[in-house]
């Protein structure tokens, strides 16, 4: 029987066979993640459970971030992947290559040119814009875990907004060491309601989430939870009235490649016992060097200026 336009054949109805779905995940996995992400945005800082799918990397290597990225991404996106500030480390290069093979999207190392940024443990130094999404990979989403190992009780504490033990933990650090030693994953209050672990970004990066222009999605694949910080939302690190929150002191550190100061630096120990410093945000460093040679766009405004002042006046004391 020959097909007429009114009786399509099976071939007309089915799409062409492919080795993989677009963006690897099948539609029903994406739908579940998308429903979860919408809930997360409506409840800033609340950890929404989701069914974490198998992806071809091991749990703990960014599966949560990867699943969020794969559910968000479309042909119009430009992707950047960051691993601890770098674009070229094994984790970042692998994830970037995987997503680009599964979608064919353009990739970049320029934070302001990307529409979608997946990152492990850093927020870029340049101010992200209103249509950008930052996906952070989260190893441990539960800020209360160190004070309450039972997740059912921790959930009850979140429901009651009972964060006394978090304050006590910080206070004990003060008493014991004379300062707050919590370096990464600094507990922060989102929209005045839920305390989050902002993933192991340094203290330097936490203020960047406050009243940000971009949307941040934090996804923990192993722990199967996802939460979000919408644009223009308050994010306040827990701080005492008399002991203000402090970011890592970068004064006196100059990047040996670019000469930049007052940005988050990697310390490179030298044979003679001294140390060199270089920008942790490799994409930003690359942009500065390229711009200096007249080959590429000039770097844009950064969250912290050259004097180390944060761009929201009065936020850091």
């Amino acid at each position, binding site marked *: 029987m020959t097909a007429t336009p009114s009786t399509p054949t099976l071939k007309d109805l089915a*799409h062409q066979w*492919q*080795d*993989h*779905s*677009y*963006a*690897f995940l099948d*539609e*029903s996995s*994406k*739908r*579940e993640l*998308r*429903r979860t*992400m*919408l*809930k*997360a*945005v*409506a*409840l*800033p800082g*609340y950890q*929404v*459970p989701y069914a974490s799918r198998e992806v071809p990397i091991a749990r703990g290597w960014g599966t949560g971030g990867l699943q969020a990225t794969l*559910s*968000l*991404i*479309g*042909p119009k996106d430009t992707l950047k992947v960051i691993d601890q500030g770098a674009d070229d480390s094994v984790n970042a290069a692998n994830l970037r290559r995987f997503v680009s*093979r*599964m*979608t*064919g999207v353009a990739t970049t190392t320029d934070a302001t040119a990307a529409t979608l940024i997946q990152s492990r443990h850093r927020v870029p130094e340049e101010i992200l814009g*209103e*249509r950008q999404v930052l996906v952070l990979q989260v190893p441990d989403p539960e800020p209360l875990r160190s004070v309450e190992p039972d997740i059912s009780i921790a*959930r*009850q504490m979140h*429901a*009651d907004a009972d964060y006394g033990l978090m304050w006590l933990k910080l206070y004990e650090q003060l008493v014991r060491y004379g300062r707050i030693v919590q370096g990464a994953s600094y507990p922060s209050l989102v*929209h005045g*309601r*839920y305390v989050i672990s902002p993933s192991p970004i340094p203290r330097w990066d936490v203020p960047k989430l406050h*009243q940000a222009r971009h*949307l941040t999605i934090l996804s923990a694949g192993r722990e199967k939870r996802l939460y979000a910080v*919408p*644009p*223009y*939302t*308050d994010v306040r690190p827990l701080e005492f009235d008399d002991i203000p929150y402090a970011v890592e002191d970068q004064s006196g550190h100059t990047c040996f490649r670019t000469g930049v100061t007052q940005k988050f630096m990697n310390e490179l120990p030298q044979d003679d016992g001294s140390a060199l410093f270089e920008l942790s945000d490799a994409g930003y460093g690359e942009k500065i060097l390229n711009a200096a040679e007249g080959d590429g766009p000039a770097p844009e405004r950064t969250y912290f200026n050259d004097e180390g002042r944060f761009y929201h006046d009065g936020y850091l004391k």
Partner: protein
Amino acid sequence: MATPVQTPFEAKTQEVFTALLWALSRPGEVQAIPAGDDAFALIGETLLDLESSFYTPDETLRERLLLTGAPHVPATEAEYLFFSVWNDDAREAIRQARRGDALYPDRAATLVLPAGFSGQVWVWRGPGINGEAHMSVTLPDDLAELREEAVQYPLGWDAFLVGECRVMGLPRTTQIEVTPLQPVHRQPVPIQPVHRQEEK
């Protein structure tokens, strides 16, 4: 290996989801959704499957959304409620919609409602809004009151306002109020010193 491409259905749902995500992330901003199809059905097809549930009094829409595999359940249980027509039944259903509980506020309903993007001016504040947004939007009658009843943050429902290929998000975090009419002929009032509490 050939790079996978989106099927037409995948392309459509990704586009609708992007619109919904930005709608909820930036309340008070209108997002475009693909033209040429019923916006309510598009949103349903983007979000619904066997793992979720929905309610709608609209029979045509119900038939179409049942094809997603999602069960049609009473308004009290549904995760997603679609009202293409606004009437007393819709109001009653919304009164019964899920609001989540303290342990799981994410178990609240999401409403998809008809709206027009003109008319009364509202001031919206909250996450996703830089300061305040002045919105000219025709909300369904009594919606503000119904929302007032339902939302006790973090409990309450979230809504998508849908009109002609456009969508706007109304998450439970948004505070809305009607702008007071600007006084026209008024004598200038001498300015009094104001004692503000210092912001923390």
